[in-house]
C-alpha cells in the first residue's frame, strides 16, 4: 500500500477559485443548464461569494468565544452557589439588572444559535438525499432559528423586573 495522501490525482492541484471554476462541493442533482455548445457545464456560481469560507471561519471564532460563554453559563447556573435550585424569577431579575450579564447572555444567545444553526445546516447537507428535502429542512431551520433569536433578544431587551 502506497503511503501518499491525496496525491494520486493526475496533474498538479490548482486552486479552483483562481481559475474561475466553482469548488467541487454541494453539486445539485439538476445541475445541467441549457447551453447548446457546452452541455452539462456547471452553473455560474451564485449566492454570497466565499460564503462557505466565512461560515467555516465563523464556526472556529465563535467556538472559541462559546467555550467561555457557554461553560461559564453552565458553571454559574448548575454548580456555583446552590446550583439550579436557587433559580427563580427574582434571581433572573437581579442578574439582568447588570449590563454585564445582559451582554453575556445576548452574546451567548446569538453566537450559540448561529453556531448551532450552521452546524445543523451542515448535518442536513450531509444526510438529506433529495434537494427538496434539503430545501424544506433548511427552511424550517432558518424559520426556527430566526424565531428563537427574535424572541430571545426581545425578552432580554424589554425585560421588566416589576412585571405583575
Amino acid at each position, binding site marked *: *500500500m502506497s503511503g501518499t495522501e491525496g496525491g494520486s490525482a*493526475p496533474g498538479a492541484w490548482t486552486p479552483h477559485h483562481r481559475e474561475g471554476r466553482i469548488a467541487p462541493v454541494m453539486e445539485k442533482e439538476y445541475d445541467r443548464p441549457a447551453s447548446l455548445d457546452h452541455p452539462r457545464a456547471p452553473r455560474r456560481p451564485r449566492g454570497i461569494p466565499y460564503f462557505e469560507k466565512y461560515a467555516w471561519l465563523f464556526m472556529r471564532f465563535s467556538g472559541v468565544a462559546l467555550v467561555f460563554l457557554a461553560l461559564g453559563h453552565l458553571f454559574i447556573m448548575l454548580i456555583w452557589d446552590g446550583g439550579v435550585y436557587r433559580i427563580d424569577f427574582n434571581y433572573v431579575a437581579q442578574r439582568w439588572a447588570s449590563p454585564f450579564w445582559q451582554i453575556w447572555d445576548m452574546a451567548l444567545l446569538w453566537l450559540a*444559535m448561529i453556531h448551532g444553526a450552521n*452546524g445543523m445546516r451542515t448535518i442536513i447537507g450531509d444526510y438529506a438525499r433529495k434537494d427538496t428535502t434539503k430545501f424544506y429542512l433548511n427552511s424550517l431551520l432558518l424559520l426556527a432559528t430566526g424565531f428563537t433569536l427574535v424572541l430571545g433578544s426581545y425578552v432580554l431587551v424589554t425585560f421588566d423586573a416589576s412585571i405583575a
Partner: protein
Amino acid sequence: MSTQTAGQSPGSTAVPAPRPEPSRRRTLYRGDPGMWSWVLHRITGATIFFFLFVHVLDTALVRVSPQAYNEVIETYKSPIVGLMEIGLVVAVLYHALNGIRVILIDFWQKGPRYQRQMLWVVVGIFLAVFIPALGMIGLHMWERFL
C-alpha cells in the same frame, strides 16, 4: 473552447501494486478514534442545539409573568431533569474541548500530526473537569432530594 478533458494524459499515473491480502478496513479513517470523536461531536452538537430552543422558550416566560416562569422552573427541579442537566454538561464540555482540538488541527501547523494525542488530552481534561462538576451537581441534588 475549453472542454472537460483537458489535463488528462494517459499513462502518467503509476498503477499501484495489488495488496497482499484484502483488508476489511476500507479506509484509514473508518473506525478510527478520529471518526468516533467526529461522530460524538455531531451528536452532542445537535443535542445542544435542540436544548437551546427549549431553553430560550422557557426563559422567555420571564416576559409573561413571574408566576409562569417560577411554575415551569419548579418542574425542572426534579431528579430526572437533574440527570438531563448532567447529560447537558457532558455534551457541552465534550463539544467545547473537542472543538478546540478541531481548531488546533485546522490552524496549528503540527495539529494534524498530533490529532490522536490531542484526543487523549481532550479525554483527560474532560474527566478532570467533569468529575468535580459531577460531584458539585450531585451535592446540590443530594441537599435537595435526600
